[in-house]
């Protein structure tokens, strides 16, 4: 409709040409646009947060290239049928790789999350971030919604196996994110509210049990989160320095590349997990609200695309991708600003570090593929 008002204009020709290209690539215009803005801002922030380290920026750009390639490939080439067929395979491959990692890690005597495949290293747990919700969606696809108790138990087991393996790596943050992505599928599938109400005390009990299961340092992190002042120079240091960085930024920030907390390295993990604090310090409240708003747009658009899905698999997978993305944003910004404990979750698409960027954009590739290919399937 809007386009009609300036027919024949160059703008219209450009836009329609752009729109055609996007459609041909299987991309969603608004979502792609906002994602592109976030990634570009991320590059600028990494340059500042790394202490103007061009090597790191180059590496970051390399990661972006791989991630974009993954997004384009999935959006254009992976049709929903293939994706649905591939879901169990991806899940099983992921489990196998986790076993490999656990075994080599056991031999290497230490935390082992990485798998070296020659040209690059990656974490099998990253695969599970997509494979777990897709597996749950695949399972529910054939079955009527809302899920029965048996369905819930089956999905619960599907979620629990990789989660438990990743907790013992130990990587509490990733494990929680994976569990959350599976739970999101259950919720979106229509999990009855009374079951949710009943499960809250059960989850509380499980958390209590988990307290004895997790590693000391993870326990310490939670205790430190509850009272950072107890451990000013240890684990509490991260939380305190991060809040100093954000709070000292004020409304407008100290200016690009002028955040003393970040530039003088008072802020730990400044270009990875705590990069949101760098944004707060250098660009202030306005900068952080801008980033949060962009994330809000991404989540909203992604949810909208998921709602338009034509079958259960497409809807549940899309919704899980959208809401998992939100969980990353919330956990990271919450931890950096001191309302959640410190778990190693990067800020999506901004933090330096390859694996999470690839997984996230691959997820959006799947989401857009499910959306753009919907007319090809008959109901």
């Amino acid at each position, binding site marked *: 409709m809007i386009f009609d008002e300036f027919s024949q204009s160059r703008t219209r020709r450009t836009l329609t040409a752009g729109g055609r290209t996007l459609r041909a690539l299987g991309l969603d215009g608004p979502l792609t646009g906002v994602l592109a803005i976030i990634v570009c801002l991320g590059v600028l922030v990494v340059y*500042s947060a790394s*202490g*103007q380290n061009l090597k790191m920026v180059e590496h970051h750009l390399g990661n972006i290239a791989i991630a974009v390639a993954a997004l384009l490939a999935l959006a254009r080439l992976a049709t929903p049928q293939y994706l649905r067929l591939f879901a169990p395979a991806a899940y099983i491959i992921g489990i196998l790789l986790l076993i490999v990692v656990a075994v080599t890690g056991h031999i290497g005597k230490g935390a082992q999350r990485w798998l070296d495949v020659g040209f690059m290293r990656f974490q099998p747990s990253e695969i599970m971030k997509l494979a777990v919700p897709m597996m749950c969606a695949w399972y529910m696809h054939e*079955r*009527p*919604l809302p899920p*029965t108790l048996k369905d819930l138990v089956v999905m619960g087991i599907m979620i629990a196996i990789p989660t438990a393996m990743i907790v013992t790596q130990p990587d509490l943050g990733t494990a929680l994110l994976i569990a959350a992505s599976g739970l*999101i599928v259950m*919720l*979106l*599938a*229509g999990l009855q509210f009374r079951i949710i109400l009943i499960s809250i005390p059960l989850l509380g009990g499980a958390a209590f049990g988990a307290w004895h299961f997790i590693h000391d340092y993870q326990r310490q992190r939670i205790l430190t989160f509850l009272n950072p002042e107890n451990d000013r120079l240890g684990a509490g240091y991260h939380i305190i320095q991060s*809040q*100093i*960085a*954000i*709070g*000292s*930024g*004020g*409304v407008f920030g100290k*200016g*690009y*590349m*002028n*955040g*003393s*907390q*970040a*530039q*003088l*390295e*008072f802020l730990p993990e400044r270009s990875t997990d705590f990069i949101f604090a760098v944004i*707060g310090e250098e660009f202030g*409240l306005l900068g*952080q*609200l801008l980033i*949060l708003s962009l*994330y*809000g747009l991404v*989540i*909203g658009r992604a*949810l909208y695309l*998921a*709602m338009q*899905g034509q079958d*259960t698999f497409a*809807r*549940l997978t899309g*919704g899980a991708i959208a*809401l998992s993305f*939100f969980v990353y*944003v*919330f956990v990271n*910004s*919450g931890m950096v*600003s*001191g*309302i959640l404990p410190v778990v190693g979750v990067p800020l999506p698409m901004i933090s330096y570090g390859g694996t999470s960027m690839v997984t996230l954009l691959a997820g959006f590739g799947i989401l857009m593929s499910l959306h753009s290919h919907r007319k090809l399937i008959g*109901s």
Partner: protein
Amino acid sequence: MPRRVRIKDHYAEQHIFTIRGIVAGVVVGVLLLTVASRLFYLQVLRHDYYAELSQGNRVHTDPIPPSRGLILDRHGVVMAENLPAFQLELVREQVGGVPELNAALGRLVAIGLLDSEDVGSIRRTILSHHVYESVPIKLQLDDEEMARFAVHRYEFTGVDIRTRLSRHYPFGAMAVHALGYVAAISEQDLKRIDSDSYAGTTLIGKLGVEGAYENELHGTRGYHEVLVNAAGRPVERQGAFTPKLDTRQPVAGADLILSLDMRVQRVAEEALAGKRGAAIAIDPHNGDVIALASTPGFDPNAFARGLTTKQYDALQNDIDKPLINRALRGAYPPGSTVKPFFALAALKYGVMTADQTIFCPGHFSLPGSSHLFRDWKPKGHGTVSMRHAIMQSCDVYFYNVANKLGIDRMHDFMSTFGFGDLSGIDIPGEKPGLMPSTEWKRHAYKRAAEQVWFPGETISVGIGQGYMLATPMQLAHAVSGIASRGQIFKPRLVTAVRPAGSSAVTQRPVLPEPSLTAVTAEQWSVIVEGMELATGPGGTAAAATAGSPYKIAGKTGSAQVFTIGQNEKYNEKQVSERMLDHALFISFAPAEDPKLAVAVFVENGKHGGSTAAPIARKIFDAYLLPDKTL
């Protein structure tokens, strides 16, 4: 009950998902707003708090120590100044923990830059400073030590040579007991000073003028702000920007102008050279201390350089006690120097008239007692009046005076001249001496039998023996009171303070003490004439004063021995030398218009007239006849 068959209802399922999606969207919105409000709290409501913390994180203030005020004599001769020196300093946080610190100190001992005996106290001093402070561990390295450290430098992190201003005393040991000295700030010093205002300062005044006027001399420290990173290392810039950093220049300490005259001081010390003793010269018009000598002395530069424990012990254990300021801390029996004062007391209380004579047979005894108090002249002085009793220092005359006055009147009168009390000179460490009284004895002893004052004890005090003790400073102070005929001033060394960079000099006030009004001019004249006779032909100090163009009024004294130190080894020759009487002389000149009052004390100097009086004569010559002496 038939099992309900569930079939997929696409529209219902889509509806479920849409509802769930909308609910999820709302939850997302609420949670994002939660984060946003947390950010608002941190960045708007708590901004000031965090801004301050962030500033404190990145900016360290590096102290700039002030340069210490100069000390000048009354004619502007520099007696204490500041010269650049190289010193070895250590920063604990760069060295590491206590094991690394011990290792570093051990290596410094191994290469001979520290003495193993000093390591303990150096470590304590280091540990009582903040970890980031640069603590001096060896002051004033010489060229050879600098070279030795340079060779081994690579073995040390956190230890380096820095250039600082150090204290220098151009005259060395001269006037050291008046000036005092500076030395490294010790653990005890740190407890009483504001360590912040001494940040970056190495030396602090101890004793003498350096110690007493520490506040004036020290000055105000400055600082410059340094940008530091999380590791505490100073950095040039922060990201793309170089922030503005504040610098405040230090304010140098004030210069002090002393009453001392270095020329007179030099004469006094040269005259005392080789002796253990003290000489003090005071201007009776205002209490200005013109010379204050105590021998032997020591070189204060050695303290500013930093003494090793060994060197310090050597000074401390020296049998001549060079560290003791005899002028202020040596309390000795004043001997016959008290006679003019008791003569004046006799006149004031009316127990004797000036012309009343007493026959001196060479001894005295109290009525009803067989104990003989002997005169120094066994044959006696014959018939003597007051003037001649002073002139010849007749003991029997003053035994009678004491007997007539009684100890309490003697105490009260002598107190007005400052005996038994601090003179109040403006440097620390003075001893009050002792002017006995019946009340004093009641308090001084525990047993009732010992608290009783015996009449015989009064007789001994009459010639400055018995319980009475006075410091050379008190004698000078008191004789300046005779010179001024009753108007005594608190002795002072610092006459003026000149703030740094200012030509305006603040004069310190002259401090008069209550004047003696109960003594008439005639009464003053009697004892001044007696003291003039004592330096004239036939007087006890005749030889020393012969041929002077001005008239000296004086009184000799000798006092029974007092031995110093309990831990001296028995050495017959030395001990016997140390059993000789102490020699004293109090005086002022010119007698008719006194410009200078001088007290001289020589430990084991035998006779006041032959040992102490010539020293006083040289001091008078230096002060009153400046052209004759160089």
